[in-house]
């Protein structure tokens, strides 16, 4: 096939718009979130003492940390859909890292040192490690579709970003259930759980984000 002939083909193909329509993308997003919420309400549920617990700054901290991580990564996720865009990852992580550090220091200052270790290990670390990745599956799939729909030129990095953002979102949801309130618990197990989803995203991205 001559290049001129290919050009004729491409000109004829203009009527079908490339990429996923916005409406269908919104539907995927709704499905991904519904998937997380279904798992959440089927296996976890909102903690019984939620209305009381939410007055505790340590509980509020969990939500602030997760939300700040997601909000920080979202622009980078969008940037990685464009082939020429710089994807600023490290600079984006500064704010959530500061928030986490403030949470850790506040916890150390407000609780006696005898409780530091027990607070960090918590009561349900393995539930945290299982639940956050499980809740992240739907959102991760949606983010990978969103990025694949664009033109990512760094598939591993973009996949890791999608994983980290999905992990942050599911950490927010898991915090509605999580009975471990020490910020040291969040610093250790939430980070580890989000890290697992990040690695999963990177591994999937390597294969799924090619074009």
């Amino acid at each position: 096939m001559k290049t001129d002939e290919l050009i004729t083909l491409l000109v004829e193909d203009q009527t079908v718009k490339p990429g996923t329509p916005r409406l269908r993308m919104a539907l995927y997003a709704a499905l991904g979130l519904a998937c997380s919420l279904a798992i959440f309400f089927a296996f976890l549920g909102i903690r019984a003492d939620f209305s009381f617990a939410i007055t505790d700054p340590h509980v509020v901290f969990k939500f602030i940390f997760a939300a700040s991580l997601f909000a920080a990564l979202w622009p980078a996720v969008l940037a990685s859909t464009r082939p020429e865009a710089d994807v600023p990852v490290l600079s984006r992580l500064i704010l959530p890292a500061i928030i986490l550090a403030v949470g850790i220091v506040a916890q150390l200052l407000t609780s006696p040192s005898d409780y530091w270790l027990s607070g960090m290990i918590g009561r349900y670390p393995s539930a945290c490690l299982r639940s956050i990745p499980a809740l992240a599956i739907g959102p991760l799939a949606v983010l990978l579709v969103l990025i694949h729909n664009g033109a990512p030129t760094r598939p591993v990095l973009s996949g890791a970003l999608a994983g980290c953002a999905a992990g942050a979102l599911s950490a927010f949801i898991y915090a509605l259930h999580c009975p471990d309130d020490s910020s040291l618990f969040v610093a250790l197990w939430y980070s580890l759980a989000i890290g697992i989803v990040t690695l999963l995203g990177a591994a999937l991205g390597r294969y799924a984000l090619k074009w």
Partner: protein
Amino acid sequence: MTGFDHRTEALASLLQRANAGDAACYRLFLEQLAPLVRGMARRGIGRIGTPLADLEDAVQETLLAIHLKRHTWREDQPIGPWIGAITRHKLIDLARKHGRRKEIELDETFEQAAAEPADPTLSDQEMNRLLESVSETQRLIIRSISINGVSIREVAAKLMMTEGAVRVALHRGLKALAEAYRRLEL
């Protein structure tokens, strides 16, 4: 540099009008784009050490990729880096196919590319081979339009399909071609 700026500005305005539905502008865009992509690809191929014989195939794959990803160009962004990034992405793919596993540095930019006409002695048969992997209807539509220059309306009449169905089949066929190239082992 003004000559180069002028060149990318012209491409940007053509693609903008093409995105608004002007097919003649889209043809002009692709016709002006092809020699520049070829120029950039030739320099890139020289740098990554892949055979020059792959040049025209690489140009076609890049044009196909730009076509299928044209919605990722934002009209408020310069078009040169966008075209350059896609071309680089395809050249690095090509280098990997030739077993260059290490990280490849390709600092050619689209703005530096010199326009280069097609070299008739170089093979441009990869697309034809890849056509074997798409469905029969898609292949028939692609061949009729590209090689025989038949219009979509005529293809639709001949295949007793609606024009809409032909357009969808053409689009899917092009996506399948891009996918087949990506999976191709050289």
